[in-house]
């Protein structure tokens, strides 16, 4: 079901990925290629495994007790599940933004942005200041907060908090950014800002976004993967998936006939 990417560089490749939580198999033999500097959307009904797949890409699914996986995932050629690889290392290369924005409440805006750097040992003030501005500019938040970097992070609106979380993730300079329904808790205006942001970010980052909003997937992504009951049903260019999908299950889901 996977298609070769147009870019010569493959950011992430999954081969025969199976994920189990105890006895329950959540992902069944998923194989796909994600091209570098592209946006890939993952769609599917609830319980289809799309969030689990996303989390497998930065080993976050291991936080669930009794989680295990078989198969392989490579990040720019590196096997992220190799024995000697610590999950911490993977997560610095593959960042994640969550559905509910979660800026750390005891920290200011600037502290939130640099927390990933500081707690990983980077203390040089110049670097921190520079990265703060850089990350906030990249997440289109700089102009709104540049005069109050020391204000508490929770004083921002919902949409701003989410962009702050994006800045926080970008500050560690990951290669890939994973987004788990990043706009589902936001109003339409904030949502559209996030979508514009994704289009900007894809110039420098590879983005994988899980969404239950098909119009959003159609607007924002280059490739779309449709998951159902733990399987990858179809994966291809977004325009094809949404105008003429090859699989009937995809067509039925996309036109709202189930799920």
């Amino acid at each position: 079901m996977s298609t070769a990417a147009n870019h010569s560089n493959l950011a992430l490749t999954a081969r025969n990925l199976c994920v189990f939580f105890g006895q329950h198999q959540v992902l069944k033999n998923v194989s796909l290629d994600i091209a570098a500097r592209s946006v890939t959307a993952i769609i599917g009904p609830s319980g289809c495994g799309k969030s689990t797949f996303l989390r497998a890409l930065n080993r976050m699914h291991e936080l669930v007790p009794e989680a295990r996986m078989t198969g392989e995932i490579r990040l720019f050629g590196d096997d992220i599940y190799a024995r000697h690889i610590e999950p911490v290392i993977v997560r610095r290369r593959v960042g994640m933004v969550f559905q509910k924005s979660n800026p750390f409440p005891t920290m200011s805006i600037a502290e939130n942005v640099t927390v990933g750097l500081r707690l990983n040992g980077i203390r040089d003030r110049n670097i921190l200041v520079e990265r703060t501005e850089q990350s906030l500019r990249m997440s289109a938040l700089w102009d709104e907060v540049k005069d109050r970097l020391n204000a508490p992070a929770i004083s921002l609106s919902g949409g701003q908090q989410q962009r702050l979380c994006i800045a926080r993730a970008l500050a560690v300079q990951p290669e890939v950014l994973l987004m788990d329904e990043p706009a589902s808790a936001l109003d339409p205006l904030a949502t559209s800002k996030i979508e514009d942001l994704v289009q900007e970010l894809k110039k420098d980052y590879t983005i994988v976004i899980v969404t239950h909003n098909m119009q959003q997937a159609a607007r924002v992504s280059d490739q779309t993967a449709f998951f159902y009951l733990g399987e990858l049903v179809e994966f291809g260019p977004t325009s094809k998936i949404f105008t003429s999908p090859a699989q009937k299950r995809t067509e039925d889901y996309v036109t709202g006939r189930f799920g």
Partner: protein
Amino acid sequence: MQSVTCACAVLVLLPLVLVFYHLVKLGFGSINLGFFTQLPKPVGESGGGMANAIVGTFVLLGQAAAIGVPVGVLGGIYLSEYGSKRLNWWIRFAADILNGVPSITWGIVVYGFLVARELTVFGHVWFHRGFSALAGGVVLGLMMIPLVMRTTEEVLQLVPGGYREAALALGIAKWKTIVQIVLRTALKGIVTGVLLALARIAGETAPLLFTAFGNRFWNHSLTEPIAALPLQIFNYAISPYDDWHRQAWAGALVLLGLVLLVNIGVRFLTRDRFKRNV
């Protein structure tokens, strides 16, 4: 409905108000500078104070905190962030039981180990026989541990999982996540739990009867008996001397005031502050 609940709320406040009023009425008159600075006078002489008892209470609470806070907080962290389901269940079970053990039982146990006989380890004498401030500190500390552990755990559980996830997703190691993110977020709650525990044991009298024992003079070493406010109040209250009764009231008022002061002080110290630099 509203009037019934309002009446009940008033009823709750009533005993507090009555106790306070009584203490102030009967004890305030005996509070003077001498009360805070002088040692108890011998039987028969009037005047004197509870300076040693006040200091003694602080010494005992300090020791109790030194034992109870680290063990309790770290134990609470373990319960909340690590551990297996089964093991944690047993630990919680044990802690809940210990929280219900009568304080006098704690006193007897520590009496048996540290007071009634020498404590020798590998031939070296660790504890001499006899009442000591250390024994008092130990018993209060042991009582604090399950209390602090459970409240710490509950407060940590209240920290939304989203913060942990976000920190881990940034590639921050688990222990750093716990210390720098989770603990920081829960700090106010943990401090509140600690001082609630301290306030509770500040008034414990029964265990101190067997361990600290009380002292009419200044304490010079942790291996000697030490005075404490609750002990002094107890001794004075059951005595036949009116002067001592008045001093007991004053002592009770001071004890209550102490607890109030500690409460207010720590609330002030843990208020939100955001004037930090990057």
